[in-house]
């Protein structure tokens, strides 16, 4: 009766139809999210099934005091900034190229999609072979081109590790970002360029005053998406370095994996995950606020 009072026939029918989906979503998405938040208030270690005390915010407070956690935050930030900047710039360059008419454009567009189509695990294994200091293709190529006189250490050199992982990440992510920016480019009305030409604006001015501002939505989309992917990225770290050498590639996602699935500490692992989620949301909000102001 109450339902009938609040909703008309059409709304009740709609509710009936979406009820199964909402139930499934509730069970497989909402409940686990809520339950993992609940778990983050316990000290749960699966291998100590009989000792799971309720510790309020201890798991969170412990993280703030943990030096390794802040190192991981710093590494995650560095990785994200390097990756997103490189992806955006490279994707812009390729999108501008593909926006021109030239012979073989379709072929280039198709080839461009290959990295995107490769699963991350395969991508990581491929780069592991490329970077290997003993038999890697990178050393082989540089050696044959006389750029190096002896094989170099790549992933094992802590000063290069993060940049090399970022390189593998960028290689995989550029195609999607290119497509997003290309769509944005194609949607710029040609009148704007004609008007700029009539006003005597040279190529660079047209680029900075017409093209770039018109692509703001595309940039926002690329930056938000890639930032969220980069912050949470795990596969490459797992396969290429396992957080090493030393702690050179200890990023937040790796810390969460180790804490949750190696140490089987589900309470503190859940707390870390929630902090990561909060950071991701905050960043997305910041980017939307900054870039989206005049969209």
């Amino acid at each position, binding site marked *: 009766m109450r339902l009938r009072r609040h909703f008309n026939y059409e709304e009740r029918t709609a509710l009936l139809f979406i009820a199964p989906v909402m139930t499934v979503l509730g069970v497989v998405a909402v409940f686990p999210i809520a339950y993992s938040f609940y778990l983050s208030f316990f000290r749960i270690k699966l291998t100590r099934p009989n000792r799971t005390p309720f510790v309020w915010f201890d798991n969170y407070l412990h993280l703030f005091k943990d030096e390794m956690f802040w190192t991981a935050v710093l590494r995650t930030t560095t990785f994200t900034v390097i990756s997103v900047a490189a992806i955006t710039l490279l994707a812009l360059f390729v999108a501008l190229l593909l926006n021109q008419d030239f012979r073989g454009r379709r072929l280039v567009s198709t080839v461009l999609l290959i990295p995107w189509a490769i699963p991350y695990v395969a991508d990581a294994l491929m780069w592991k072979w490329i970077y290997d200091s003993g038999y890697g293709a990178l050393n082989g190529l540089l050696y044959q081109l006389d750029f190096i006189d002896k094989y170099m250490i790549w992933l094992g050199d802590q000063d290069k590790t993060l940049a090399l992982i970022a390189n593998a990440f960028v290689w995989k992510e550029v195609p999607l970002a290119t497509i997003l920016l290309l769509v944005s480019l194609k949607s710029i009305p040609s009148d704007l360029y004609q008007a700029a030409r009539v006003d005597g604006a040279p190529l660079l001015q047209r680029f900075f005053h017409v093209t770039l501002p018109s692509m703001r939505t595309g940039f926002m989309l690329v930056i938000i998406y890639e930032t969220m992917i980069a912050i949470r990225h795990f596969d490459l770290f797992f396969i290429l370095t396992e957080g090493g*050498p030393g702690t050179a590639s200890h990023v937040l996602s790796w810390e969460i994996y*180790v804490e949750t699935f190696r140490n089987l500490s589900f309470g503190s692992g859940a707390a870390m995950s929630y902090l990561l989620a909060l950071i991701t949301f905050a960043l997305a909000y910041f980017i939307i606020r900054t870039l989206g102001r005049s969209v």
Partner: protein
Amino acid sequence: MKNRFEGVIGRRDFLKTTAMAGAAALTMPGMKAFAAGNAINFQTWSAAVDLVKSHVAAFEKTSGLSVEYANSPWAQYRDAMVTKFVGTAPMDVMWVSDAWLPEWAEAGWISPVDEFDSLMAYNADAETFCTDSMTYKGRQYGLTYYTDFMGFIYDADKVAAAGFSAPPKSWDEVVEQSLVMKEKGISDFPMMLAMAKESWLIEFMSAMVFSHGGRFTNDEGGSIMQDEKNGALSALQWVVDAVNKHKVVSPGCVETGELSGLKAFASGNHAFALLPKYRLAMLNDPAQSQIAGRAKQALMPMGANGSHATVGWMRFHGMATQAAADKARADNAAKLIEWFGGKSDGAYTFQKLLFLDIGAGFGVKPLFEDADIRAKYNTYADVAIIQEQQALARKKDVVTPWFGDWNEVNGASWQSAILGNVSPADALKKSGEEWDDLKSQA
């Protein structure tokens, strides 16, 4: 209007088909046992699956008992098992790694088997480190699946080309011979150490530490790794010097895992390597190795105050607590454990077949005298050296319920020292503090 399913399958047809499918399923061995509810649930990782299946079939035939056999990949095995234990999935017998024994025992998931005299009788034939590795807090938790140890492998041609008549006996001699090899252009980095952060790392570290006469922990389980005299310092210092001072080990060792190191050694890049002994078979196989016929094993080199000791490891058949709690189930589980880890038909059949099939090591001394085994070993290795080294193997002294947590920190500390970020003393101090901290929380 005609139902669109009409003519395809009717209700009666559906019920009939379902009943027949059910009956057919029940005639399958596993399902039959499941329906009867008295099958021995046997869980392993995915190794030698065909051999295990045929040995299970022989057991079922001989004992009249049913076995529900399942396996999952090694990489996910521990996580899968923990989930099953927590979810109280049916379990009687399973393969256990020595590294998980304390945490599984403390959690109450597995139970000691030392009350079964039939199983304990096999200890008389077993290597000491094998029984030690299956023992926690004075109780024995199983019988062998397979065992092996970390071996010192060398390329005999390179040693000869450098002008040496014998492989190094000490770690100082490893440096000495390596420097000559570097000078003669035989190898840029003669010694191969795989120090990447992976599950093998603790075995590599333990072999270095034991052969230097050190230990990570004392008999009471307290940390002594940071101790200058009896700890791990001289071993880590040797590695750091080998990489940074003598440059006989590649700085890339921190990114080299066991498999990558094996491939590099098999390609002829190095003269010496620390590798699991069972890798000798692959190294001397011309189809897989460029140094086939030249890969030999020597006793583990000694440190200044050390010995030829090395580290050994165990994978064994354990019994689930849920099985141990029920007398009938426990008796059946013990029979299966004996069939695999002890003798079946009066001989160590499974361990022997496992060795002949995949080269996995065995932990019982009498098998060294078996003619088939000796013949097989002689195709790629020196049985006498293997036997001598195996007798000097010791169990890892860090296997505790907090081993996994500590291992992450310890691995990073060793790598940091190798990279020159911290001194070996500071790296081990950090490892020791982490150990004490975790121990106090346990």
